[in-house]
């Protein structure tokens, strides 16, 4: 089919320094980016693959050079809001190619092509373009036309980079500004029901799925692409509880999909009708009575939390599709949401979290609160935590 | 015809421990007659057909000639299909060795072509100890069919077996003569 093998088994391949034929982007190159734009049907020439500048075979072995990957797509059901979702697949699909690794996204991409793959015949970006078009159109029939251009001419790359940066910023502004109130529908996911039969994830504009894999835009794309699939649209209906962000149609659908086990979600609370979890969460929010506040722990944290229980024990309390007040499984991105636990007080109510996680979400924690949230470096148990909080004037 | 109990096959691990053993078909012409008389034969190819030399040919070459003499369906076990496709022959089935034996046990199975259960099953190229186990299964549990091990190491649990043929040259002669005689006997109506 192709000169080299293609498949999900090649995700995660590493290509070391002395092993690459060509390296595109990466830490040693300033000019690099990938950009997917949704255009009108007549603006895209289907199956067109272009290389502007030198190709792989034109470069000496071991070269490190700039690259811009420009993908234009068109289709009746496509909209610009889906660009980010589509763009992330460049990473996935390029990693499917034997001997190529792709890291990062947007203007932080880093690609290496192994000498072995080059020797097997992967001597042109044309091959990569062909594979991208085939995979995109196979998975997403809503893409009716697609063209791919690889720009390696440094001057052109720089020019397009300016365009790309603008597009990224527009997207970010839109996402940042997008509130649950601004959208008509949320998205549901029941992919995990084979081990959590009563669990339904409700993904809102400000609440990423607890597995971290699906945000509101992903949900939107999934529903378009596969209306019969595990993701489905949830019309909001009416906001029946403005303090606890509970919507009537959402609750109705949750009740149906959970076989009646769960009848109400307060979408941004861990204490009252909390959102259920299957077990795939990236982090757990847990209530600490001694601090009248929350602890947060992420999956990668090793050892016991401040309440002397590790992630694995807390996970048992949070999972299984049951509503367990005081426990909430979340995606890490939710910690950066403006609505993070807003019904319970948001970060004002967070007492403890691992230092690495705290650093990660620094920008989302009010500045004056940052040092008043304890980490594993500050306290070892709830007594010390209570004392810490008293000193900080929080208790 | 009377059943004889054979003595030792080539491989001692396959020694018969029972009261019912194969009839040894010493003459390739008789082997051809047995095959030609079958109404719904099947030929099972094992992995060793792929690269076992017989003179200047491979075992699969002879096995294919036997099969093609009267369009005997072929079940290519293991990864034999790959070799067959190189030789531009498509097998009728790719059930693995235990799978095909399992289906052959069922007298109501409609066979690899859906034309009815098989009445004579030929085996070539299956690893000898494994072949002997499959033949034992059919001996006990498939009274509705007969088996013929076309293998020069000899197989006591088959209904019909080739004698031990030590010399490669003699084996080639046996196979060549078998191929030559096939198709010269009209199958029973």
């Amino acid at each position, binding site marked *: 089919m192709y000169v080299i093998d293609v498949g999900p088994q090649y995700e995660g391949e590493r290509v070391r320094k002395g092993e690459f034929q060509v390296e595109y982007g990466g830490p040693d190159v300033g000019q690099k980016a990938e950009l997917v734009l949704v255009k009108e049907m007549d603006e895209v020439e289907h199956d067109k693959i272009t290389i502007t500048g030198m190709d792989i075979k034109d470069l000496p072995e071991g070269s490190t050079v700039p690259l811009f990957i420009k993908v234009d797509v068109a289709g009746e059901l496509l909209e610009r809001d889906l660009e980010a979702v589509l763009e992330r697949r460049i990473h996935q699909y390029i990693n499917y190619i034997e001997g190529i690794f792709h890291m990062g996204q947007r203007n932080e991409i880093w690609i290496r092509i192994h000498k072995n793959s080059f020797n097997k015949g992967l001597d042109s970006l044309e091959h990569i373009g062909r594979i991208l078009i085939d995979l995109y159109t196979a998975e997403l029939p809503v893409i009716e036309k697609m063209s791919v251009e690889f720009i390696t001419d440094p001057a052109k790359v720089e020019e397009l980079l300016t365009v790309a940066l603008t597009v990224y910023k527009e997207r970010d502004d839109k996402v940042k500004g997008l509130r649950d109130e601004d959208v008509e529908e949320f998205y549901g996911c029941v992919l995990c029901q084979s081990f959590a039969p009563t669990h339904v994830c409700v993904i809102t504009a400000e609440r990423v799925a607890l597995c971290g894999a699906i945000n509101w835009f992903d949900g939107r794309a999934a529903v378009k692409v596969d209306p019969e699939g595990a993701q489905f649209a949830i019309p909001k209906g009416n906001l029946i509880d403005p303090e606890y962000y509970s919507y009537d149609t959402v609750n109705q659908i949750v009740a149906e999909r959970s*076989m009646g086990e769960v009848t109400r979600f307060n979408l941004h609370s861990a204490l009252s009708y909390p959102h259920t979890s299957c077990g795939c969460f990236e982090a757990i929010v847990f209530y600490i009575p001694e601090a009248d506040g929350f602890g947060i722990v992420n999956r990668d944290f090793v050892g016991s939390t401040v309440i002397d229980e590790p992630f694995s024990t807390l996970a048992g309390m949070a999972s299984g599709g049951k509503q367990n007040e005081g426990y909430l499984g979340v995606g890490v991105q939710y910690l950066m949401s403006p609505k993070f636990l807003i019904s319970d007080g948001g970060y004002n109510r967070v007492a403890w979290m691992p230092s690495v996680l705290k650093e990660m979400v620094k920008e989302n924690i009010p500045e004056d609160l940052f040092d008043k949230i304890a980490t594993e470096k500050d306290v070892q148990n709830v007594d010390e935590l209570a004392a810490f909080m008293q000193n900080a004037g929080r208790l | 015809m009377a059943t004889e109990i054979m003595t030792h096959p080539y491989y001692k691990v396959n020694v018969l421990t029972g009261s019912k053993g194969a009839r040894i078909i010493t003459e390739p012409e008789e082997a051809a007659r047995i095959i030609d008389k079958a109404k719904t034969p099947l030929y099972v190819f094992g992995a060793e057909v792929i690269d076992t030399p017989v003179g200047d040919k491979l075992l699969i070459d002879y096995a294919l000639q036997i099969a093609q003499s009267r369009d005997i369906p072929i079940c290519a076990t293991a990864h034999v299909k790959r070799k067959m496709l190189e030789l531009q022959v498509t097998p009728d089935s790719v059930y693995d060795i235990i799978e095909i034996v399992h289906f052959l046990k069922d007298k109501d199975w409609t066979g690899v072509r859906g034309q009815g259960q098989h009445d004579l099953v030929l085996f070539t190229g299956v690893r000898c100890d494994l072949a002997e186990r499959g033949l034992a299964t059919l001996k006990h549990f498939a009274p509705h069919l007969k088996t013929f091990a076309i293998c020069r190491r000899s197989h006591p649990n088959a209904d019909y077996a080739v004698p031990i043929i030590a010399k490669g040259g003699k084996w080639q002669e046996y196979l060549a003569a078998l191929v030559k005689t096939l198709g010269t006997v009209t199958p029973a109506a």
Partner: protein
Amino acid sequence: MRKGKMKEEEIKKTIKTEDGWEPVGPTPMPSLTDLRNWDFRLLQTYEPFYAPFCDLCCLCTFGKCDLTEDRKGACGIDIATQQARWILICCLMGTAAHGAHGRHMIDYLIEKHGEDFKIDLGSQVNVEAPIIRTVLGLKPETLGDLKKAIAYVEDEMIHLVSATHMGQEGNYKDFESKAFHAGMLDHVALEAADIAQIVGFGYPTSVADTPLVDLGWSSVNQEKPTIVVVGHNALVANSIVDYLRQNGLNDQVELAGLCCTALDMTRYDKGAKVIGPLSRQRFFLKTGYADVIVTDEQCVVTDIPQMAKDAGAALVAVSDKICYGLPNCSEKDVDQVFKMVVDEEQQVLILDADKAAEIAVRAAMALAPKRRELKKILTKEEATKLAAKCRGTCEACNRACANLLPINNAVFKTAQGDFTDLGKLFLRCIGCAKCEEACVNGIPILKLMQTAADGDTYKIRTGRGPIHDVEIRKVGSPIVLGTIPGVVLFAGCSNFPQDIYDVAWLAEELARRKYIVCLSGCSAMAAAMSKDEEGRTIYEKFPPEFDAGCIVNVGSCVSNAHVVGAAIKIANIFATLPNRANFELISDYILNRVGACGVVWGPYSQKALAIGTGAVRWGIPVVLGPHGSKYRRLFMSKKELDDWTVINGRTAELVDTKEPTPEHMMVVTETKERALITIIKQCFRRNDTPPGRGIKLNSYISAYKQLIGTLPDDLQNFVRTEKDIPIVYKREVISYLKEIGWQPKPVLSLPTIIGTYDTKVPIEATIK
């Protein structure tokens, strides 16, 4: 026999029902027939396939009885039932081997540490004993609790053995059900034994990155006094380590092992060497490298006394299972025994671990200087001379060979000074020495192999014991959804059909396709015997976590329990199904939703049969190498022609899924190529999500194309909707499906077979 009130009270006491970690399910400490309905339901789809090894029954004095055609034995038994009886007998041998090993280990450790010695498997393992918890309903907290588990195994076994007597069970399905019971008990014994030795000896636990140790017959340093321990029970091996440490002799004495003892003692001391699996036993002992041979138990060739004598080595037998007719010196004074062994060259039996350890070390140190000349391996000139009488024509060796090898050519060429074929032979030799026995010229064929044997040393990771609860949480979702395409365990013996490094090939093919690959016992050792261009074995090449694309050595044969345990933990920890005394519920979950497959590529032992049979009862299919046909029994469905109706847990309705998953529960494949394809297929599960099925089908299609050259011939059986089709092959597959008139099939997220047979377990329990 129906349990009376007193018996039920006894069970409650044993499993400490007052300890309310979970409510007690319907089958605490099940007896012979308590899970019979589950067994029969399995057998309904996966019929026993018998390949009789013998046409006769020779058990009792009414025989021999001819069982061909419709004939019955004097007792009325038919050939199928006789095979099933034999299966039960062999499974019981396997269970007894592991159970007795566990009993011995636990009793010894209780003597050492006390009954109340706590079980602590480290911070990463909270669910310490998933099998014991599920089968008995007991959460073991101490060595005393593990003793209860072994006692339960022992109690059940007496009934099972009884059923094998002449004039007992008369139905092959019931024999198979009893064999399942024996297999399940075997797993209880495995788990109890391994937990005991991990906590009792301080083996690594809660650590994935265990040390890499040396493996290979030439890894043994012949310059040092050398003790070689052969067997599976590392108790004495560990005592030898203790003695060496206490006397500051670690660096002066070489300690090496053959078979699982090697794997377990390297968990105790990473300086010990792993010589190799069972197939290397005779070869190695004939090299004369061992100054002292210590035999413990299981898979030990029974002519070691003669081999030791021929090699001028001392022999100390240390197990009551293998006494070899030797004088029992357990009570004798240690100096007296030393004299017997070193001066009088007597072989001895010592059932006292510490005494045996001291004798082994002191004897090795005394004998080594005298044995220098005996440790020289054959030179090429010597080999050529020894082979000289071979004409290459009598073929007596070929005919006797248990692995059907062309030995005559190799020996004849050796006589001409060409060792290439002999080297190739070594890779396929399973070490039985029948060739030597058959040779009309008395040529010592195994000895000749010394000149041509691959003398490389390799790296193997020491056994790491249980899978961590956090690992389970991490991989639980992708396994159940299917996005990790499967968990494959390579277990069992070294009776490989072809090259010993084929296990490494299979393991690597799966690991690079992102399967989770686990290995144990002889298979773990064999898989180390292959290096890539950079000189790395698979243990060096792949990470040791229980995660996609990783390779894990769980340890010795008794460590197999941890992989079954991982499947249970996925159901219990991850899917939060209660497992206490809940065998059927958990097994149903595993059968329908956990893509796991056991592989025994070189099966020979009764222990492997017991382990495999037990795995089937848990819902884990098993793929065997061709020698496995000589177990006499497999479990096969009629593939796409069978009935694949299950219950949709969501609606409690019957649904015909029309797909054979898993296809067979125990099957033999002839070649490694077909094995790879079969293993991949055996990991499909009914509840695979479309992305998960897509990933699994991607592996299936890519392997099939690589090895057979086409799309899989039965692909249509496993595509439920177009969403299942992997995107890389989408166009090609859609075109093929159209051509053959494929129709979509139902996709279930909560499939179960509970409700398709008479059971105490309600359907609602499967969806909690």
